[in-house]
């Protein structure tokens, strides 16, 4: 298929300032023409998707996922993870490097993008910042970038040494990459399996103090400030504490290039949702206090948060059916991000639809320097999500496209039902044939 018309839908393209009924012609993987309904000039012979009553928007972009390949195909593969992405409206995902082996080389970076992986949507590798993510020796960022890496990070293995983090920030800046930090002082979180607070005390679980996150964010911001190089870009992954957000907010006021993302579970859930040891409520950073959760909502509403990212972290059923302190960290998120964001951020907390979509597409595209994505202006990639923004539906984890179903959102009511996801002009997800 080389040409596709999406007809009769409401086009919302926040980056282009468009919110109007439009017909869109996709051709050869790009947006070829946009016109008022019925006014496309060159749509002859194209297949037609009837989007009457639906909304179409730039395909969503998740800047923080774990696709588990290479090495842990029993949890997820690039094919299954990207199928889940497409089902969730995502047309691009940035894959973290904590694979087996760690993605710290141009070879693995290319391998992940190869056609043989049969990805349903585009995969943009994030390469390891240091060799083996051991936090000791820097990788060759220029080589990784030319292999396709869009950022560097030692996600899950935070860079603790000041000198290594300083060198990482400086070296990445020289080649125009941002550094994504999983902010956790692991010296303070040994053996801990949830947030430190009254709930962890009551459950008899060792807790992670909020300061274990905020102290690293504050340290990193100090390093950015000391480097005095405007190209230096620090991005704080899965921000979960009010104190870390306050540090990001202040850094921005001081003119530093410091950005952050928040995951849906951190703006929706608290440590109370751990319940009686629900391992599907165990992730790192953990679910925090209600005050921290409220601070996430507030920072999203007032614009301090730059992106919503899922931290999609699949684990096999048997890995989560264990004692809470033995269970691995992480939950899946690709199929629920839009539904939860529309249900809560938009419907409940009144964030305009365009801003929700921007946090899930235009803004992460800009952060990662993706050209021609996160918008649907003519000439950009034909990455489109078509959905019914008013439709309510219930998430059934057993029907997931992912290989794993470790989610705390099973059975939750979602809003915004996805009809089609189009990746570079190709239908990657069709609700009618899913």
């Amino acid at each position, binding site marked *: 298929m080389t040409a596709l018309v999406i007809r009769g839908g409401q086009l919302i393209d926040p980056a282009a300032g468009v919110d109007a009924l439009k017909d869109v012609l996709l051709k050869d993987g790009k947006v070829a023409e946009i016109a008022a309904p019925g006014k496309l000039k060159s749509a002859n012979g194209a297949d037609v998707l009837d989007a009457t009553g639906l909304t179409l928007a730039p395909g969503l972009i998740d800047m923080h996922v774990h696709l588990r390949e290479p090495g842990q195909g029993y949890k997820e593969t690039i094919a299954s993870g990207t199928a889940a992405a497409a089902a969730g409206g995502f047309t691009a995902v940035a894959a973290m490097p904590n694979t087996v082996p760690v993605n710290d080389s141009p070879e693995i970076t290319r391998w992940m993008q190869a056609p043989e992986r049969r990805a349903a949507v585009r995969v943009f590798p994030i390469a390891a910042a240091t060799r083996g993510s051991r936090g000791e020796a820097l990788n060759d960022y220029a080589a990784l970038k030319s292999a396709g890496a869009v950022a560097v990070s030692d996600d899950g293995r935070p860079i603790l040494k000041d000198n290594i983090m300083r060198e990482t920030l400086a070296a990445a800046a020289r080649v125009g990459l941002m550094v994504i930090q999983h902010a956790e002082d692991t010296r303070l979180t*040994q*053996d801990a399996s949830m947030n430190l*607070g*009254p709930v962890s*005390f*009551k*459950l*008899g*679980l*060792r807790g992670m103090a909020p300061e274990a996150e905020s102290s690293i964010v504050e340290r990193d911001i100090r390093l950015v400030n000391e480097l005095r190089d405007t190209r230096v870009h620090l991005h704080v992954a899965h921000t979960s504490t009010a104190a870390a957000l*306050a540090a990001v*907010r*202040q850094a921005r006021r001081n003119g530093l290039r410091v950005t952050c993302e928040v995951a849906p579970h951190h703006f*929706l*859930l*608290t440590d*109370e*949702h751990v*319940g*009686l*040891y629900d391992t599907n409520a165990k992730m790192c950073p953990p679910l925090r206090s*209600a*005050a921290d*959760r*409220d*601070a996430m*909502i*507030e*920072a999203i*509403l*007032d614009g301090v948060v730059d992106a919503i990212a899922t931290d999609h972290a699949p684990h096999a059923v*048997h890995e989560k*059916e*264990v*004692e*809470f*302190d*033995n269970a691995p960290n992480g939950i899946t998120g690709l199929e629920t991000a839009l539904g939860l964001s529309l249900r*809560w951020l938009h419907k*409940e*907390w009144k964030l305009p639809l365009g801003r929700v979509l921007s946090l899930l597409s235009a803004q992460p595209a800009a952060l990662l320097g993706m050209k021609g994505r996160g918008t649907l202006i003519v000439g950009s990639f034909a990455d489109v999500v078509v959905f019914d923004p008013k439709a309510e539906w219930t998430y059934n984890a057993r029907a997931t496209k992912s290989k794993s179903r470790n989610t705390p959102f099973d059975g*939750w009511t979602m809003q915004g039902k996805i009809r089609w996801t189009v990746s570079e002009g190709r239908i990657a997800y069709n609700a009618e044939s899913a």
Partner: protein
Amino acid sequence: MNRTATPVRRQLNTPPVAASPFPYNPGSLLSVEDLSLEAVSHLLARATALENEDPLVRARILAKRRVALLFYESSTRTRTSFELAAKGLGADTTLVSSLSSSIEKGESLKDTGLTLRALGAEAIILRHNSSGAAWLLEAETRLPVLNAGDGMHQHPTQALLDLRTILAHLRPGIQAVTAETLAGVTVTIVGDILHSRVARSNMLLLPRLGARVVLCGPKELLPELAAHAGPGISIERNFEAALAQSQIVMMLRIQAERLAGMQLDLEEYKANYQLTGPRLAAHAPTAVVLHPGPIIRGLEITAGVADGPQSAILEQVRNGVAIRMAVVERALKAADQGGRA
């Protein structure tokens, strides 16, 4: 940081926390929080009745029923008293411990539980080093699970036997407990609160009967947030001030196996928190001294106090058998009444 620039919006409607599905089996005893005061009263009454019953009659109550003891941690009192309790009711018991079973080969708790169920176990008594393990076992097997101690979390039969001991001293002859039964009573729990499932169980049970629970210990072993675990709980760091208020003093062992690298000055600890004869005589001359055991003589408590007239430590042990008979009976009788999920 200028906090006024970012006022937190109140009154946000946020996703609710789902109601707990536990316990799945009405015969289970996972936490003291699962028990209503009526259920506590019933267990206390059955403990007394079973204790007074003719052993030959008692042994017919659960004759040939199968009860498994699954122990991932060493235990003397709890294991033996559960075993004697189940056997006293006529049940067959089997012990699986982590050091002499397929657990050593890497079998999961889920698979071990399913195996015991397939072997005919009708209830499982679990002692485990991970907090929450009893909930996992119950969810996977749907059998009555009796929590004999999970990590740092709960040890509900210990709280019940402590309650029985307390009542025998302070409210002798009482039949049923209410929210006022222990009104005016202060129970001080002293020592390694942070790592103690006994402390957590007692602090969540005794205030529901009207008692005040005072927690006493150094910051490393007693974080401030312990006072938020439930109503009726407060912290008093000065041992002597705590003793002076107490009718019950419950001493705890320092759990060296759970300190996780914490450095503690034992001499300083003893100077501040050891229960000695002179300290007890000066500040709580009529208080009843409890200890869940094992006691470390010369550390948290002196030999003189442990063996002295105010000590009810061995009485606690005896009460353990009676309470556990009542709990084991409830486990299988509730299952008989259609509780099997």
